[in-house]
């Protein structure tokens, strides 16, 4: 049987249909199975806050040890569109996000436009 790690790439459209709790549940259930998730669009700050809290509640000795998560820094809109965004109070949205089990996903390098990660199978 082929050994490996499952990677789930979740589109922005699919995420947009989910409530905050559904997103968090989807992430935690998937990661606890040992899968790596790539979100096309990252979580809102309030969702990130709840994800940290729920992750802590699910950690078990010799079981789930938490999550590793990386995203690019937010991009700033420039020029006229950036001016309009600032004028109407629209903030830059979070970007592509990688999430995995803390004991399987290790970040090697992170730059403003590159995330380099190493994944091990269980």
């Amino acid at each position, binding site marked *: 049987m082929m050994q490996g790690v499952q990677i789930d790439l979740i589109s922005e459209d699919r995420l947009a249909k989910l409530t905050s709790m559904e997103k968090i549940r989807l992430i935690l259930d998937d990661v606890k199975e040992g899968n790596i998730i790539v979100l096309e669009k990252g979580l809102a700050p309030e969702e990130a806050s709840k994800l940290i809290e729920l992750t802590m509640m699910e*950690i078990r000795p010799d079981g789930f040890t*938490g999550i590793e998560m990386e995203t690019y820094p937010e991009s700033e809109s420039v020029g006229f569109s950036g001016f309009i965004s600032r004028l109407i109070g629209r903030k830059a949205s979070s970007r592509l996000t990688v999430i995995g089990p803390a004991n399987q996903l290790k970040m090697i390098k992170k730059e403003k436009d590159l995330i380099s990660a190493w994944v091990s199978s269980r």
Partner: protein
Amino acid sequence: MSFLIRAKKKISRFLRFFLKKKSARIGIYGPPNAGKTTLANRIVRDWTGDAVGPVSEIPHETRRARRKENIAITGTNGNSIVIDIVDTPGVTTKIDYHEFLEYGLDKEEAIIRAREATEGVAEAMHWLREDIDGVIYVLDSTLDPFMQVNIMMVGIIESRKLPVIIVANKIDLPDAAPTRIKGAFPQHPVIFVSGLEGRNVEALYEEMTEHFG
């Protein structure tokens, strides 16, 4: 020097007596082992002579949020504030009890510490959502400030529109690079401090009176 400390405590008691309005709750946040409790102890000792809690080189020594009420602080600019200091457990997205075994804890102690630490992080996040009016975000100047947990936490604090001061702590260490922290968070005031030695804490007090007043 002792005259100055006595004078500061007298002014602090005087202000507490006259300024009986509700104190703003200022949370001390940051990743584990950034020196949050050392800094909280420094602030509380300087203005009340008391302390907040014990410190340790083992991560997650603080596993419950601790509040010290009615700390009256006067900056060198003459401005004063009365605040509650809330020292919080270090925020992280992962806790593995095996990490504590490396510090000499036995398995049972390590498992209990890990369980309490997870509860502490959840509690810290709850405080941030419900009960905090301003944040001092503490970072270890010897480490990479771009760690994801820092980016996430500063984003969460910004989304709640809470005033924040970033403290680049541990500047007494030889490999400290506090300017990296200033570069990482240009949108916020960053103060270079040694909580352990008390270096530059006067600048922090001045910024606190301006920012949280």
